[in-house]
């Protein structure tokens, strides 16, 4: 699979009078896993929508592999996962995965077989089930299989496991990490959970609220799988928390 970098340059966005994002500069390397952390309402989701080209920024620009988001979407390079699994309830799990391949097909690319993907996320037994009969965790597994179905080079993930219970969330994040290491897409992972951000990513970017600006970033040079009880992990967690707390206090 082709690897792609994401470049965000002097990006600002306003909703009416509200300044949602201000002068965001961010470069994500091909195959890098970057977490974006910030309190609720700091513009994390807006940034993700702008990168996917679902919205157009008031100022500044976004380039994926040097192309505009619209071109990246047309080439089907963007994998999108949000807090809601957003599966089609009238299609079975397998049919949902197939739909991702059916929409905007890219000639000449090899698409993986849906059943193999379902096996990868542990849903083989539920291939013929309808989404509403599944638990929230299984729905997100199906959504992950659907993201993999198009072989996308960029994963934009807006708190995909936030609605799940702690244990399921941890387990799914671990599995996601394994799949990521296998395919190495470029990931922008949005979360408000610092612990999760440090456990998963290569780099943690902290966003301030109103207007959203980058407060700072922390590189996570620890090898995976990471031991969250280690001194290095705890130290990084402390640094990130200090950065986030300082900005929240300033923001208020």
């Amino acid at each position, binding site marked *: 699979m082709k690897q792609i970098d994401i470049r965000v340059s002097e990006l600002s966005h306003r909703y009416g009078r509200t300044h949602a994002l201000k002068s965001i500069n961010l470069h994500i390397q091909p195959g890098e896993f970057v977490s974006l952390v910030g309190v609720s309402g700091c513009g994390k989701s807006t940034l993700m929508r702008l990168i996917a080209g*679902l919205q157009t920024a008031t100022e500044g620009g976004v380039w994926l592999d040097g192309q505009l988001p619209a071109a990246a979407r047309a080439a089907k390079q963007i994998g*999108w996962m949000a807090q*809601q699994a*957003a599966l089609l309830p*009238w299609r079975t799990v397998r049919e949902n995965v197939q739909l991702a391949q059916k*929409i*905007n097909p890219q000639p000449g690319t090899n698409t993986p077989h849906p059943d193999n993907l379902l096996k990868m996320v542990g849903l083989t037994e539920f291939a013929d089930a*309808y989404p509403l009969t599944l638990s929230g965790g299984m729905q997100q597994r199906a959504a992950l299989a659907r993201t993999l179905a198009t072989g996308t080079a960029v994963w934009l993930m807006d708190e995909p496991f936030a609605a799940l219970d702690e244990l399921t969330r941890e387990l799914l994040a671990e599995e996601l990490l394994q799949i990521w290491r296998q395919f190495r897409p470029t990931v922008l992972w949005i979360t408000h959970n610092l612990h999760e951000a440090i456990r998963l990513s290569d780099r943690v970017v902290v966003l301030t609220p109103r207007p959203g600006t980058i407060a700072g970033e922390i590189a996570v040079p620890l090898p995976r799988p990471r031991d969250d009880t280690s001194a290095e992990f705890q130290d990084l967690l402390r640094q990130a928390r200090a950065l986030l707390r300082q900005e929240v206090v300033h923001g208020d």
Partner: protein
Amino acid sequence: MATEKTGYTELHRGDTEFHRENQKKLRFSSTSFAPSAVKSFLQRVNWSGVGLLVGVFGLWETAVQLNNTPAYLFPAPTAVFRYLFLHLADLLLAGGVTLLEAVAGLVLGTAVGLALAVLITFWQQLEQGVMSLAILIKSTPIIAIAPILTIWLGFGPAPKVIVTALLTFFPVLINALTGFRAVDGALLDWLRSLNATPQEIFLQARWPGARPYLFAALRVVGPLALIGAVVAEWMGASSGLGRAMWLAYTNLNMPALFAAVFVLTGLSTAVYQTIVSLEKRFLFWE
């Protein structure tokens, strides 16, 4: 109070014993004669509804008999049912004509309502114009349009179908449009992230998602379609329940009028139940 209570209990005990006897008989008959199909039918029948209906007819009959109400004012149920059975073929034929007109009008009205809703969904700038026209048509009393259409199009089924369509298209239009727009935002984001075309978004998300809204409209509009057809028939028709009712009305033949009403009620219930069972089949994921 205490005596009353005992009295009631006595009475009640009598009831239970009677009931138990009946149960025994029923059990006996069902095990020895009734095949499982009959048994399952007996289980599915809404006995409380049947009981209520029998009770109402009983009271009605008693009131008419005790009061000696003349049949041209208010016929007893027995008189109505006598007429119904004596003229069953005619009434069913008339009912069939009305039903066909109503269903044709319903299909036409639904098709037009759906088509307009699709049009507005794809070309939003058409909304104001289409909706103003739709509201104008909807606001014109159907009772005023029906005779005009009869004069123009004659005593055949055409004016009935059109009146029914005029009566039914509006709720379908409103509900379909609401349904097309009620698509989940997260689903829309996902489809757009794949660069889905508006047509793909419509076929994959808007159309299936609007089905619950559409069926809600059909439940309302189904029985309404029969009313539309009957009203149009009152304005002049060569056949149909409306014509039968009009004839009965001009002759003050109240049993005939009531019999026609009964047939109409039966048809209306059947139409409603058909829509409900279609809904169950098409909304399997809910």
